């Protein structure tokens, strides 16, 4: 038992942080989030080729560096801290995880190397108009006609849908009453029967799209996993997706604490640094409790992924619910303690606040995860 970063992991963390401090600073974040793609493709290439980040989970034989979720969490914490705008989460946490979980050899060898090298951006299209994370939420259908699948439906809330190359689409067998009888498909975004409509999101650092699939035809080779296994695969992948968000939340919450500490040590009112006022000090102390606890929960779950432990689902629900609330609270408090400038566009605090909000509901709200925990407790 050694629940602290190894030296190599510390180096990974520090390297990531200093890279991101340079290339994901306030100015570049704002430029990226207002651009059409919503991320900087040049930076993306550097993250892939120089840093090897897109291949972090990809086994070496597929061109990656084959590290574990512990390293990934360490890295994503820094991305959250520096508010990186990029399709890293959908591509790595969702895309790679899906392929590793359910892809056949042909799929893995054709996609994983491209992802690792930064040439392929992937996303997952599971939610629809109800916004529900339950199987009933998926109304998109597929039908097998000869050796082809034909998909119809509307996907919503698809992260980076408008800038992805490959989209993993969940659909249910047409006219099948079993709500969990779902299957996953690999869909190229260049397919003429898919139309992608970028939505306005309150958090500009996490764009979302709506996708319309109209008689979209796919060959059998585009089925991911077995027919009917879709819900099981989705469950695993979305659970990992939640952990990825949790790591981002830890970093974001930490940065809110850091920014606030810095501000209250500079700002003076009543002839004193406002950081000397107890109401502010105590709130910072509470923030630190939240941040450190959030970090413990995310790291713990990451260790369990690595160790293949049964407790994993529970640990991820703990992490996602706790980190969500911790980030939201820290970001809220950060606005409050920044006073007037805290709600201006110019300061970055609101960007963190909005990311805290969008992260909170991504991959299950705190309430949904608490309900899962209650379920684990047999209540």
């Amino acid at each position, binding site marked *: 038992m050694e629940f602290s970063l190894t030296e190599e992991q510390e180096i990974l963390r520090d390297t990531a942080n200093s890279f991101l401090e340079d290339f994901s600073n306030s100015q570049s974040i704002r430029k990226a989030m*207002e651009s059409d793609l919503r991320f900087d493709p040049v930076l993306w290439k550097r993250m892939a080729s120089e840093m090897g980040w897109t291949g972090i989970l990809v086994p070496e034989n597929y061109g990656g560096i084959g590290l574990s979720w512990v390293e990934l969490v360490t890295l994503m914490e820094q991305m959250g801290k520096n508010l990186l705008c990029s399709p890293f989460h959908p591509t790595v946490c969702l895309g790679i995880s899906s392929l590793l979980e359910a892809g056949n050899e042909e799929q893995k060898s054709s996609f994983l190397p491209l992802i690792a090298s930064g040439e392929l951006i992937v996303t997952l299209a599971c*939610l629809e108009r109800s*916004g529900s994370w339950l199987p009933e939420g998926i109304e998109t259908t597929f039908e097998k006609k000869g050796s082809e699948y034909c998909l119809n439906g509307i996907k*919503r*809330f698809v992260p980076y849908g408008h800038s992805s190359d490959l989209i993993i689409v969940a659909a249910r067998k047409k006219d099948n009453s079993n709500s969990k009888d779902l299957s996953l498909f690999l869909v190229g975004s260049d397919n003429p029967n898919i139309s992608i409509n*970028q*939505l*306005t*999101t*309150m*958090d*500009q650092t*996490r764009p*979302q799209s709506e996708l319309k699939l109209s008689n979209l035809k796919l060959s059998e080779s585009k089925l991911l996993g077995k027919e009917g296994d879709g819900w099981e695969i989705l469950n695993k992948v979305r659970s990992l997706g939640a952990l990825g968000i949790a790591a981002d939340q830890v970093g974001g919450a930490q940065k809110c604490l850091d920014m606030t500490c810095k501000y209250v040590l500079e700002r*003076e*009112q*009543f*002839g*004193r*640094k406002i950081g*000397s*006022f107890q*109401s*502010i000090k105590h709130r910072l102390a509470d923030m630190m409790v939240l941040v450190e606890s959030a970090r413990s929960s995310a790291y713990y779950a990451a260790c369990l992924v690595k160790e293949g432990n049964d407790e994993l689902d529970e640990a991820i629900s703990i992490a996602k619910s706790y980190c969500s609330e911790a980030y939201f609270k820290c970001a*809220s408090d950060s*606005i*409050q303690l920044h*006073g*007037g400038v*805290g*709600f*201006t*566009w*110019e300061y970055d605090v*609101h960007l963190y*606040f*909005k990311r805290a*909000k*969008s992260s909170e*509901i991504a991959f299950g*709200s705190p*309430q949904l995860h608490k309900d899962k925990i209650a379920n684990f407790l047999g209540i």
Partner: protein
Amino acid sequence: MHLEFSKKEELFREEVSSWLSKNLKGKFKPVVGRGGSGDQTELLEERVEWEKHMGKSGWTCIGWPKKFGGRNASINEQVIFYEEYTKAGGPGRIGHIGETLAGPTIISFGSKEQQKRFLPKIRLGEEYWCQGYSEPSAGSDLAAVKTKAELVKGKWKINGQKIWTSLAKESDWIFVLCRTTKKSSGREGLSYILVPMSQPGITIQPIKQLTGQSEFNEVFFDNAETQEENVVGEVGEGWKVAMGTLGFERGTSTLGQQMAFEQEFNTVLKIAKENGSSEIPSIKNQLSEAWIGLRIMRFNALRMLSNSRDGLLSKEAMLSKLYWATWHRNLGKLAMDVLGMESEIGDKLPYDLTFLQKMFLFTRSDTIYAGTNQIQRNIISERALGMPKEPRGDNKK
């Protein structure tokens, strides 16, 4: 102790509501329900017309004494007026700073000449006002203002910067708290000066907020001028005058604000019923708590108004800002929870947000402007509960 209104008051209610229903239509139809929080700078021309129409009809400044053109309306009548106004969808009042701050200050502290010069134009919707208090380094600590005014040949020359000024572009006048005694500090040596906005010495810079909109401004004074006689109260007594103004700020309009909150609450409740989220126990509970909180806000306001004697507000009045700001912020969060995944999705690109998203974001400033929650708690504990003041630091700048 009784809650029922008297016959006379009920008649007054009918008079208000019937006037509003007869007048808030036709050419004024477009302004119904507009100009609230997050919509403050929209349909200005039409709303100015409405202000003038109200003024001409004697429905502005109803709480002012009759000799200044008001109706000398009782607190209950003012309550009734604000309630009916909100119920009828009366538009956000551009004239409210003049009516509730500048006007009462001039009534209490101004000279007869000032009263004659300024009050009728406020009442008739012919001149609009904004507030010049906060500065970048004088936010919570208002006594730290640095903006200076110097008397040169019968005119005040003003230099400095104010911040968080609402409706600056739309206003004709600003009341400015500034330092008229050189080398003075703290509450000494300040004066309360009225300055015309339309002049080369004044520059307005909107502040973009987290919603993407600009409801506040910075106002820069670079040798801005005003006549010597435009100081309210004695020169050097500005702190006293300004504190008087702060007192006026939390009065009878609070019940109108609460009706606006109720409309927001009803919108959230309606969505929760429609999208089924009201069946999620935690949402259901939060809706219930929000309603309890809103009702109690009303009970508090009624009690506070009944307890206020001679225009002085009661102890309980100190609680009002902390209470409503916190409640409103929670409603913003609840609105998002009710919307679920849809809470992220705005109206249109690049960054047009929905009404509820803007509310969610804007309510983050409710607990900051006009005295942060922290400052409110200081005030309550010191003035209402007698706790010792926090020691000032000596990092004099």
